[in-house]
């Protein structure tokens, strides 16, 4: 599905601040994987996601998605296949446009922008049906500007937009970290439901250890630019938060 081979990233190369962010990371994501990634700040989690999404170009290595080499593909081009959510709920939506317009834009993902109507009337029932799944009543506020929504509502909408056209891969970068605990729980449940329903391979970064243990089928711990621990299946289910905390300092 997603195959990462010997990915290496150095920041500030050739200066006194030179730092290896990813140290020859190799990993393969399977079609039904929901992977959670834990690690201290600076462990390389976000750099890994940025490389996959195309914000950062690696020094060397290879990223393949469904057999296609995407290592050097432009960010907006891979966005056709990859959905992404950030920690900042404001990042994923256009505040001065309506919910309907935002969804319309997300729905055209992967197609060429043309001079046809931006919002097709026939798509609106589908949008409403999808929004209703969020249980936030957004389906009745389609013409409200997104800037009027709360952070949690905006993040829920972003999630909906990222998966409206089912992506080949979903990247979640601490997407519930900026939300209050209750909203974070709701968003996490919706995420899990959407991912399961559409069978989307997912990689989620989190600092919430409970979240990392509860959701997903695999757990990776990263430290100093390497994947230092992989927990799967029964092993993952039986791991406690205390045990997990000790793994943070594992050397590669």
């Amino acid at each position, binding site marked *: 599905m997603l195959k990462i081979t010997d990915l290496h990233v150095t920041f500030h190369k050739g200066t006194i601040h030179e730092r290896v962010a990813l140290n020859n990371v190799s990993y393969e994501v399977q079609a039904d994987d929901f992977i959670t990634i834990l690690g201290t700040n600076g462990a390389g989690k976000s750099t890994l996601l940025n490389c996959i999404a195309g914000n950062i170009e690696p020094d060397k290595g290879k990223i393949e998605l469904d057999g296609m080499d995407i290592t050097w593909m*432009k*960010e*907006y*081009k891979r*966005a*056709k296949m990859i*959905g*992404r959510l950030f920690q900042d709920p404001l*990042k*994923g*939506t*256009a*505040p*001065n*446009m309506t919910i309907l*317009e*935002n969804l*319309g*834009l*997300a729905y*055209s*993902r*992967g197609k060429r*922008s*043309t*001079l*046809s*109507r*931006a919002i097709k009337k026939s798509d609106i029932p589908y949008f409403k049906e999808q929004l209703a799944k969020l249980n936030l009543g957004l389906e009745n506020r389609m013409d409200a500007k997104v800037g009027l929504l709360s952070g949690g509502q905006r993040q829920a909408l972003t999630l909906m*937009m*990222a998966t409206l056209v089912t992506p080949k891969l979903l990247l979640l970068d601490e997407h519930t970290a900026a939300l209050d605990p209750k909203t974070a729980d709701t968003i996490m449940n919706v995420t899990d439901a959407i991912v399961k329903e559409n069978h989307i391979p997912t990689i989620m970064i989190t600092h919430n250890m409970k979240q990392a243990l509860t959701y997903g089928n695999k757990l990776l711990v990263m430290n100093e630019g390497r994947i230092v621990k992989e927990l799967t299946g029964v092993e993952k289910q039986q791991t406690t938060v205390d045990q997990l905390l000790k793994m943070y300092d594992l050397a590669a």
Partner: protein
Amino acid sequence: MALSTLQGALELGLIYAILAFGVYISFRILDIPDLSVDGTFITGCGTAAIFTLNGHPILGIFAAAFAGALAGALTGFLQTKCKIQPILSGILVMSGLYSINYKIMGNTPNISLFDKETIFTRFTALSDSKLMNLFLCILIVAVTAILLYAFLKTQLGMCLRATGDNEAMVRASSVNSDRMKLLGLSLANGLVALSGGILAQYQSFADVNDGIGKLVIGLASIIVGEAFFGRKTLLRSFSAVISGAIAYRFLLTFALQLGVNATDQRLLSALLVTLAISFPVLKKEIMKRRGRKC
């Protein structure tokens, strides 16, 4: 004030409304401070004047818009591909255009179209009515506004609007945001040059030095109009642009009638824009101070 003066102000206001539409696209929709406007306006004036001089007034209007769009694309190219800051990109293009405009106009600083056939003389020949110039202005603005409105409601137009609103999100929707900026700036400066081309034929005159302050006129128009209509919907914004350009022209005409010197016009415009933009801040500050006293 004489009725003919009012009619003249209305006609000029409509011509400048097209300029304001251009500025609206770069400043409001794309959220890019595009300073190339002062150059591209004259590119439009000069191009249309040369075509008119050679007997092709209608073709001249389209050529003006095309030349402006080309210059706008250059501004966009500098911003997106050469990574030059938006303000500097605009200044570079505006500055460079001065020489190019001079060349377009056949190496003369001004062109008189006196006694030449223009779109206005052709249109007024159709009827005896004194309102023919006004009708033509209304027709041009109406067609431009309708086409632009329809465009902004298409998928491509929506991507353009979203680019100014949240560029990261646009890229995440697999849209090339650089291309959107290029397209938007072309469209914006195409409209600005179109306005310039029409103005040159309207006043039968083109001057290479006339560009300074056109951007401020566009901004002032938008701000004046938004005071009445706000900018909640696209329709309101469009009403604001047109009515603002006209209201602003009336304001200037009124000031001139009161004996304000024509060369003080630009100072007036600059003051108006400054006041209008800082007004909310001033108001807040005054309210705060009042609150403290109580």
